[in-house]
């Protein structure tokens, strides 16, 4: 099998599987993208984990723990998908800790109030679903399969987030103000999650040709805005964008300009929480070393033959 077979599979909208021949660029692009997607899931546990001990009720606490546990699971599915391309999870985690691979910038914003847990589920997970539904159709089999599984679970995440917003929006004046404040702070970063405008997006063209990316950044963003605005209206909250207006002719909402300077600042590592997120992740890894060592020693003692696997 060679490049002709690879192209033929893409043309037929068939999936590429791990043992198939693939161009080096395709392999490297996927390794980088899947790894950074995995890192995002793992780092994403932090802003939400921040509220587990302070969830307002036992019910909300158990839900939040389940959600954070899901994020860990999503990270693991994705590291597994990346490993089918010939890297090890071990190396990828090393690249994250060394600051040599990234994770989604959205997690470099702090979760200041309980309302933020609602806003993250509703908006951040909502934006993620929009993107991941597209990725569930990508050309690389293991990545697409991981996405199908993840999308099913994300649906719970988004609904629980919206329900938190609903409770706050129907609550006291202070609770309503909290919901509005969270929407105000998370709206623009959520739109930024879709990345630069198509005209400025560097890798998009090749990824599209390889059918890794199947919908453009701007189209995905528009899709997200169109779905989310009516949901905000139902909550009685206002989207923090004076330019937001329904465009009858286009059949879409028009929205104001995104602050790309803020976007690039966070991407370059200077967002509010960049340093803290990696410091925390690295600390957890180091402090957990004795558990991994003990498990390895136990396995060696009881089944020395297994370790050679």
């Amino acid at each position: 099998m060679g490049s002709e077979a690879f192209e033929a599979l893409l043309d037929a909208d068939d999936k590429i599987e791990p043992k198939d021949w693939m161009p080096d660029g395709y392999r490297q692009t996927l390794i980088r993208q899947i790894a950074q997607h995995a890192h995002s899931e793992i780092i994403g546990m932090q802003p939400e984990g921040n509220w587990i001990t302070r969830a307002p009720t036992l019910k909300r606490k158990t839900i939040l723990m389940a959600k954070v546990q899901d994020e860990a699971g999503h990270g693991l599915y994705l590291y597994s998908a990346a490993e089918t391309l010939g890297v090890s999870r071990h190396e990828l985690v090393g690249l994250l800790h060394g600051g040599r691979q990234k994770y989604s910038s959205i997690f470099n914003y702090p979760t200041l109030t309980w309302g933020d847990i609602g806003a993250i589920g509703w908006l951040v997970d909502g934006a993620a679903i929009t993107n991941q539904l597209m990725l569930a159709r990508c050309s690389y089999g293991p990545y697409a399969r991981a996405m199908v599984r993840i999308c099913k679970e994300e649906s719970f995440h988004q609904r629980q987030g919206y329900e938190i917003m609903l409770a706050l929006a129907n609550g006291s004046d202070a609770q309503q103000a909290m919901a509005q404040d969270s929407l105000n702070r998370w709206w623009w970063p959520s739109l930024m999650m879709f990345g630069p405008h198509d005209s400025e997006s560097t890798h998009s063209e090749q990824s599209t040709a390889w059918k890794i990316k199947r919908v453009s950044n701007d189209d995905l963003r528009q899709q997200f805005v169109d779905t989310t605005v009516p949901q905000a209206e139902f909550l009685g909250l206002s989207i923090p964008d004076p330019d937001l207006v329904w465009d009858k002719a286009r059949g879409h909402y028009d929205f104001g300009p995104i602050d790309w300077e803020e976007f690039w600042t966070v991407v370059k590592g200077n967002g509010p929480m960049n340093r803290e997120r990696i410091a925390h992740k690295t600390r957890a890894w180091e402090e957990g070393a004795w558990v991994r060592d003990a498990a390895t020693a136990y396995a060696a003692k009881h089944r020395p033959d297994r370790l050679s696997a």
Partner: protein
Amino acid sequence: MPYEIHTAPGEEPPDEPQAPTGDHGWPLWEVFVRQKRGLAHIHAGSLHAPDPETALQSARDVYTRRLEGVSIWVVPSSTIVASDPDDAAELFEPAADKAYRHPTFYDIPDEVGHM
């Protein structure tokens, strides 16, 4: 959660993993889950674990958080022997011209009824 990571203009792109370091941490296990009694175990994914018991426990945590299964197998990934995609033609195509192996190849008069 999400997934698209961006590189700022002028910024160095993220590192590619270099040649494998040889340090792969714990061995990899393939996980198979039986969704319910009467069905076969189906491949669900993989995970790292130091020993079979831990692999089974982790498989339960990672792959059956929502009643996805009633039974799990874990198999060391290194023990799986797979066919080569380059051999797909010789392995699988010979069956393509043997339509007589399928029931629809045979014409049975309608009068005979369902068969």
